[in-house]
């Protein structure tokens, strides 16, 4: 593998992690807001 390919190979995972973190946080805060609006417990 070339140096550029190896660099991309190593650094793509933290980027993917950041994307998943965003998706999970967005889902959590949407549900939190909805629960507050309805006056229900989040869990």
């Amino acid at each position, binding site marked *: *593998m070339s*140096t*550029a390919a*190896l*660099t991309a*190979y*190593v*650094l793509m*995972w*933290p*980027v*993917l*992690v*950041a*994307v*998943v*973190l965003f*998706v*999970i*946080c*967005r*889902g*959590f*805060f*949407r*549900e*939190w807001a909805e*629960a507050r609006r309805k006056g*229900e*417990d*989040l*869990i």
Partner: protein
Amino acid sequence: MEGLETARFSALVVVGLLVLFYGGTFLISARIGKKEENADGYMTAGNNIGFGISAASMTATWIWASSMYASATSGYTYGISGPIHYGLWGALMILFIYPFGKRIRQVAPKAHTLAEVMYARHGRSSQLMLAGSNIVGSLISLMSNFIAGGVLISMLSPFTFTQGVFAVAAGVLLYTLWSGFRASVLTDFVQVVAMLGAVAVIVPVIFFAAGFPAAFETGAERLTPEQGDFFSSTAFMEQGAPYIAAVLAYAIGNQTIAQRLFAVRQDLIKPTFVTATVGYGAMVIGVGMLGVLALYLGYEPTGGDVNNIIPGMAAEYLPPVLLALFFIMIVGALSSTADSDLAALSSIMMADVYGQNVAGKEKANPRTMLLVGRITMVLATATAVAFASLQLNILDLLVFVGALWGALVFPVLASFYWDKVSGKAFTTSVLAALAVFLPVRFSWIPVDGAFGIVVDVLAVLGVGVVLGLMVFGFFGVRAAKVVGVAAVVVSAPFAVGSLHEYATLSGSLVAYSVSTVVCWAMSVRRREGFDFSLIARRTGDFDQGPKATEAPAPPDAPDAPEPAGTTHP
């Protein structure tokens, strides 16, 4: 490894970080705590958790401290493909079990444990087999997470291993004890944010601080041809393949996963599992890349112990603030899995032991159930702390338990789809599989003669079973048979005569094949079938008191189950 020695935290800093972490999680759990907890909420949070929490919880539970250490070890040992052969297969198993998860929730929408469902399907022996294996597995997992905490604290602070174990055990018990599973999943969200956030920052920082990408060129000569090969067969045969076989069983048999399956809102099972698949894979492979970087750098872990690669690299290349973040990341990983183990153990003792076998479902007292759950958590913590001092080889133990669960996978899954499977077939097939697995796994019988060929043939059948099961969940029985048979035909010429040399792999595979063959043979001629709608009526809430909010059932949900205790097998 000077970094590890010089970058230690002072006692005050470590205490501050632990107070910050465990104090914060305790405050979060205290916010949802109720004076009168609901017994079903304590086990499954009302079967109604949303996407954000459930995806975070599934991800956090599947990631534990050892998965990060092991992924880095795999990268350090097998080179650039090493982290893939640890993280990718572990991640894909979450994906592969979600179709089974949907089916399990379809027939048992309000269950608490998989063992409880087996009781409703077959009776006591299958339930106790599953519950017993889960108790052993969760205790081992709990112990290993406490060990990881003790090692980390002793490595980065003046505190001893034992003090570290006690600190982690007390911290986890503190925030999980009162609200059980509800506290576990809510704190999982915070923990997964800390873990994923840390990886997103730490890996690139270490990458550039260590002199990459230039170090790829200067360090290339340190890699063997196999380590530099992305398609290394050594990495697959020694790391990937045994892990595939073990982790499929782990995903199916482990109560921590099943508990989240029963807790998430039924229409959110797929997005939850898909997100957890990507989250787990990216995180574990990302951390594993530190092992690959260490290999290029010619890094020597302290004492030659590969478990020191990650802490060592962090200590060497991270500034103090990020080292503190790293510390929180590892503590978060081990705590999220440890609290899941406590919640799993308590629900097994509550639902399977007390609820189904001691009091009986109709007479089970929810208050007593809660007491049983909390006492279980305290006793499990004490037991795990006591065994942690033995510092056993955790990964070997877990691979062993995973292989044991391999004997359960086909009988458990078949019990949800095939009405002909009986309790007798379930029990006999599992016991037969264990009887063959143990001598193969521990080489009690020499495998260099005819027995070796028998093992190879059974192991090849096991390859077909594993791949067939994976395909079955998504594409049905016909595709599964085609893939299973094709896998046997393709692998047989290469595997027969040599597969028995890999004891871990062949042990796992024979567990799959023997249980499948025996279960199939005992069921195929059976005339009477099982009515799957009975399972929903035989499982359900124990506690009719106030509980967490419930959403309306999704459109594809089966009819609501009858009140608890209406029918028994």
